[in-house]
């Protein structure tokens, strides 16, 4: 029997959800575990950084990294794992495009540290601890994995859904690998696989999810919810729209859409209507669009570090 491929799974600035997402594979997970050797997976087995350091270069078949890069230690670890791995996969929205923790890039590092210390937290060693026990230094900004190291593949999602994890594992275990840079999701928009009927009605109101019990069959965007389905890759099975929640874009934009926020602004600007178009409707159109209270957080919930370059702040 050939040796089982060595796999590593590592978390940087994530929430743990990506590690837990493997459980959603159900019994299939047992088959997968029987076919691999776990070289390093802090969430699952007791392995240490020194175990990784002891490995020969490129001796891990594939390392799946989840989480955004936020600390000096995150950066050291991913460089170490890159050196020891044949393939590196950005697993989940954080590693792919910065993810939810990437929204922190709207604040400067000083603002973040001031806020933390104001709440009583200090990035210092515990009382009686050694200097090396101190938390690692915070990077000026959160970054995606590809900002630091070469990334071979991406499994998007927050966290990745079982069908997408299955695509990656199928490729890794069969050895039938796609071209480098492949994103394990569809290139077509989520709307293509969403069961709701979309008539591209005009957008005559903007509602937030808690303000409406949506019709079960009609497209949510047609009902006034800001659904990112038109600009987001499919592959997740449209779990959120099926449950009456608009897509928030966790799988990332389609190759066609490019920057998801600018693509949505283009689309919403075309669709929005407050009565007959013309100067008489301008004020009402503005009020309609004002109901979209946080365009930045809505459009770049998972991808701010990848797309948004903020205005320069003096204290950064």
């Amino acid at each position, binding site marked *: 029997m050939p040796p089982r491929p060595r796999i590593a799974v590592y978390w940087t600035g994530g929430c743990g959800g990506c590690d837990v997402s493997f459980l959603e594979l159900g019994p299939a997970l047992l088959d997968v575990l029987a076919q691999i050797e776990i070289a390093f997976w802090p969430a699952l087995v007791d392995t240490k950084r020194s175990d990784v350091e002891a490995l020969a270069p490129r001796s891990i078949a594939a390392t799946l990294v989840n989480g955004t890069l936020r600390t000096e230690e995150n950066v050291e670890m991913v460089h170490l794992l890159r050196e020891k791995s044949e393939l590196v996969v950005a697993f989940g929205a954080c590693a792919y495009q910065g993810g939810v923790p990437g929204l922190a890039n709207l604040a400067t590092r000083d603002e973040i540290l001031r806020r933390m210390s104001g709440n009583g937290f200090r990035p*210092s060693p515990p009382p009686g601890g050694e200097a090396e026990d101190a938390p690692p*230094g915070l990077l000026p900004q959160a970054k995606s994995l590809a900002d630091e190291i070469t990334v071979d593949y991406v499994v998007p999602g927050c966290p990745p859904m079982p069908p997408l994890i299955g695509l990656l594992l199928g490729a890794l275990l069969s050895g039938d690998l796609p071209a480098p840079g492949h994103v394990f999701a569809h290139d077509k928009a989520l709307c293509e696989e969403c069961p709701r009927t979309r008539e591209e009605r005009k957008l005559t109101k903007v509602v937030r999810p808690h303000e409406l019990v949506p019709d079960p069959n009609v497209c949510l965007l047609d009902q006034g919810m800001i659904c990112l389905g038109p600009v987001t890759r499919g592959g997740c099975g449209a779990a959120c729209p099926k449950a009456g929640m608009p897509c928030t874009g966790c799988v990332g934009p389609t190759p066609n859409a490019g920057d998801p926020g600018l693509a949505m602004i283009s689309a919403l600007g075309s669709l929005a209507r407050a009565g007959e178009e013309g100067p008489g409707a301008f004020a009402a159109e503005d009020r309609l669009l004002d109901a979209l209270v946080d*365009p930045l957080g809505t459009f770049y919930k998972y991808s701010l570090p990848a797309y948004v370059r903020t*205005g320069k*702040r003096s204290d950064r």
Partner: protein
Amino acid sequence: MPETPFEPKIVAFLCRWCAGAGADLAGTSRIAYPANAVPIRVNCSGRVEPEWVMEAFRSGADGVFIGGCHPGDCHYVSGNYKTRRRIYLLKKLLAEMGIEPERVRLEWVSATEGAKYARVMKEFVAELKRLGPLHLEREEKTMPASPVLPRVGS
């Protein structure tokens, strides 16, 4: 060292039917106005994608001007209305990004309004001079991580 005065760089998207013709008229009428704008002629202001505006900023523009036809005059009926809504949303986004929304200016300029084109361009340049150059945050990989603060209570 003497400071060279700041001259804002402007990218101006002008529709060919109205604002573009208005800008030409300003020139042929020999109306003096600041030469800060690089004009880009488009068929309709409705063709100006938010992506282009951001690309202009990323490429070093301090301001972006969009000139379209007056309401009711759009050669394609309603392209200017679509642009107005897009720019309205884009400005909200810019504000959240820490970029002054005043750096984007949408104006209706007809083919006969050479004088208006010159006036709004003057105003825009003055506004951008007040705002100063646009500096976008660049990811600074060389920037060191934050130093560890001194130990609590020691």
